[in-house]
C-alpha cells in the first residue's frame, strides 16, 4: 500500500528513499547503543587501552632504532649472575635409562636412542610409504597450530625438518 504522497515518485526516487531509510536506521542504531553504554557506565576503559597501545608503539619504534640485540649474540653474553655458558651445555650427569655419562646439551638425542623412541627408532619398527618423501606425521594428536623450535643439524645429529599436518583453519 503506497502512501498518497509517494504516488508520483519515480523508481529512482523510491529506491533512494528506501536507501536513506536504511542508512538512517543503522546510524540511529549505533547512536542509541553507544548512548546506552555510555550512560550506564558499561564502557571499556578506553584510556587504559590507548595508553597500552601508545607504550607498545613507542617500544617498537625504540627497539627498531637501537638495532636489534637479537639472539645472535646472546650465547656469548654474561648473564645477570655474572656467569658465561657454552652454546652447548656441558654439565655432565648419568643417563637414568642406561647409566652412561652424558653432556646436558646432548642428553635429548642420546635419550631418544637410548629409550628406543623417536623418529629413527620408529622408522626401523614400521616402514611406511609416507616416510619415503621425508615427510613426518606426528603421533596421534591432531596438529592445529604448531610452532617448533630447534635448529636443523644441531648437536651433530642428522636431522631433517619435520612438516606439519594440515589444519582446517
Amino acid at each position, binding site marked *: 500500500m503506497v502512501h498518497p504522497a509517494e504516488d508520483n515518485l519515480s523508481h529512482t526516487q523510491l529506491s533512494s528513499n528506501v536507501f536513506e531509510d536504511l542508512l538512517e536506521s543503522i546510524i540511529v542504531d549505533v547512536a*542509541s547503543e553507544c548512548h546506552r553504554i555510555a*550512560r550506564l557506565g558499561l564502557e571499556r576503559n578506553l584510556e587504559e587501552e590507548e595508553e597500552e597501545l601508545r607504550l607498545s608503539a613507542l617500544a617498537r619504534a625504540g627497539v627498531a632504532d637501537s638495532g636489534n640485540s637479537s639472539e645472535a649474540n646472546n650465547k656469548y653474553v654474561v648473564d645477570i649472575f655474572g656467569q658465561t655458558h657454552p652454546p652447548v651445555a656441558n654439565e655432565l650427569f648419568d643417563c637414568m635409562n642406561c647409566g652412561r655419562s652424558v653432556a646436558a646439551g646432548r642428553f635429548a638425542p642420546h635419550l631418544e636412542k637410548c*629409550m628406543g623412541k623417536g623418529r629413527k627408532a620408529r622408522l626401523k619398527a614400521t616402514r611406511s610409504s609416507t616416510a619415503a618423501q621425508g615427510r613426518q606425521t606426528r603421533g596421534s594428536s591432531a596438529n592445529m597450530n604448531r610452532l617448533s623450535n630447534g635448529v636443523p643439524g644441531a648437536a651433530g645429529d642428522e636431522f631433517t625438518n619435520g612438516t606439519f599436518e594440515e589444519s582446517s583453519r
Partner: protein
Amino acid sequence: MSTPNWLYANPKPCSHLSDYKLRHGLSGYTKLNTCLRASPSGRLSVRIEQEEVMRCGFGLESSGCGERRRLLMCLVCGSLMCSNHSVLHVQAQSGHGVTVDVERSELYCSLCCDQVYDPEFDRVLMCKHVGVKPRNGARNGGVETGKMRFCKRRRLGLDLGLSRSEKQLGFVKDLRAKSCFPFGLRGLNNLGNTCFMNSVLQALLHAPPLRNYFLGDRHNREKCRKISLEKLCLPCDVDAIFTAVYSGDRTPYSPAQFLYSWWQHSSNLATYEQQDAHEFFISMLDLIHEKETKESCDLSKDSGECTCVAHGAFSGLLRSDVTCATCGFTSTTYDPCVDISLDLDTVRRTSTNKSAKSNEGGSTSTLSGCLDLFTKPEKLGSDQKLYCQSCDGMRESLKQMSIRRLPAVLCLHIKRFEHSHIRKMSRKVDRHVQFPFSLDMSPYLSSSIVRNRFGNRIYAFEGDEAEVSTEYDVFAVVNHSGMLESGHYVTYLRLRSQWYKCDDAWVTEVDERVVRASQCYLVYYVQRAFHHAASEDLGCLPMSPHRDTFQPIAGCC
C-alpha cells in the same frame, strides 16, 4: 529481581520521566509489552498490526504526516509520531512527553530530546525475552531465570597456601640465596632442542598457584614414593625442579629427570625433534592432572570442578551459544578449558590512520582485537546447518563464544600458524601482536556478551557476581622467533616489576620495551589479587641496583 548496582551507573531519570512514573507507574510499560515482538537477533520492536507499515499519524485526519523513519510511540495515549511531531504532541497534551522508540524499544523524552533509562522499563522488557514459558522453552535466549547460582567461592587462596611454609623460610637463611635477585630466577640448560620445554617451565615456575603449591610442599616426594603404586610421578619431578630453581643456586639447571619422566608418560611426543611449546604446556597439565586425581581419594566432585593443582590454576569455563538464524532460539553449552587459543585479528589499516600515534613500521594486531574476534558472533556457513529444536529442522545459525568462568592463571595462545589451501603449505605469521601488561577480561565474560546481545538492558544476567575479579596482570611471555620448522623459544618473566629474559641457560635483565616489542606466542596473565600477593613474597629482598643489561655482577653477595 534486584539489579546489580555495582555494574550499572544509576542513570538519574529526567523530571519528565519521574512525573510520568508517578502518574502512570508501570501501566504504560506493561501495555507496551503486549505490542513487542522479538526478532531472531534478539531485538525487541513494536508491531501494531502484522501487515501495516507504521507511519506518523500526526496532523491530517486521514493520513497524517506519513513519515516512516524514527517513529516514537507515546506511552500515555499510544499515538505514533515522528520525532519532529512528538514535540508538537507534548506541547498540545502536557504530560505526554515520554515516548518509546518503536524500532529499538528505548525510552525517549520529547522534552529533553534525549534517550532516557529506567531499570523498571528494562526489567519489564526482559520479561518478554525470558517469557513465562518453562526454562527449556523457545525464546529462552540463554537467559537463566530463577535463583542465580553463585560460583562456589574459590578455595584457591586458602588451599594453595599463600602462607609461608617451613621450606620457604629455610631459603632466606641459606647464604647462597642471599642475593640481590628474586627467588626462582635460574637458567635451564637446553638438553638438545628442548627450549620449547624450558620456556614453558620458566612460566610455570612463576605461576603463583603452582609456585605456592610446590614450595608449600603440597606434593611431598617422600610421601608420594611410599603411597604411590607407580614409580613414575610427573608431579614429583616438577617438585624437584621447583626445589632446584628456588634453592638459591644460580648455575643453570638441567631438567633431565623431568624430560625422561615426561617422555615415559607421553610417548607420542617423545622425540628429539622440533616441538611446540603450547602442545607441551597442555601435555604437562594433563599429566599432572592424571597423577593428582589418581592418587587423591578426593570425592569433591560436587560441582564437577577439578581441584588438582593444574586445573585449579588454569581451568576456566567457556560458553558457546548457537542461535538459529530463523527463529532466534539459542542453545548453550559449556566446556572447560585450560587456555584460550586465539586467531589473529584483522590488521588495523595504519596507512589510512591519520592519528599521530599511527604505527609506521608494519602491520600490527592487538590481543584485545583477537579476544574481540574470539567472542564475535560467527555466521556458520550454509554447509554447516545445525538442527534447531524450535523450527524442527536444519537451519543456518550463528555461534558466539564467551567466558563463563575465568581461571586464576590465564594462558592466551596466539595461533601463528597459517595454512594455505592453494599452495598446500603452512607458514608462520610473524605479525606483531600488541598485548597489554594489565588486562581487563570483563568484556569477554558471558555476562557481558549475553547482556550485549539483549541490548545492555539493566538486568541481573547470569554470571553477574560481584566477587568475580576480571583484572589480570602479565607475568610471563613465551616468545617464538624464527621459522615454522626451525626457531627458538625464550621466556620473559616479570618479577617485582623487573623483566628478565630467560633464554635457556642465559638469564638477563631487559627493559619492558623489549618485551612489548617482542613477538608473543603464549602470554600468561594472573588475577590481580594473586599478583599482589606474589610480589609480597619476594619483597623481602632488595632489588638489584644495576639495571643495565649485560652488566656482569661478579660474586654476587
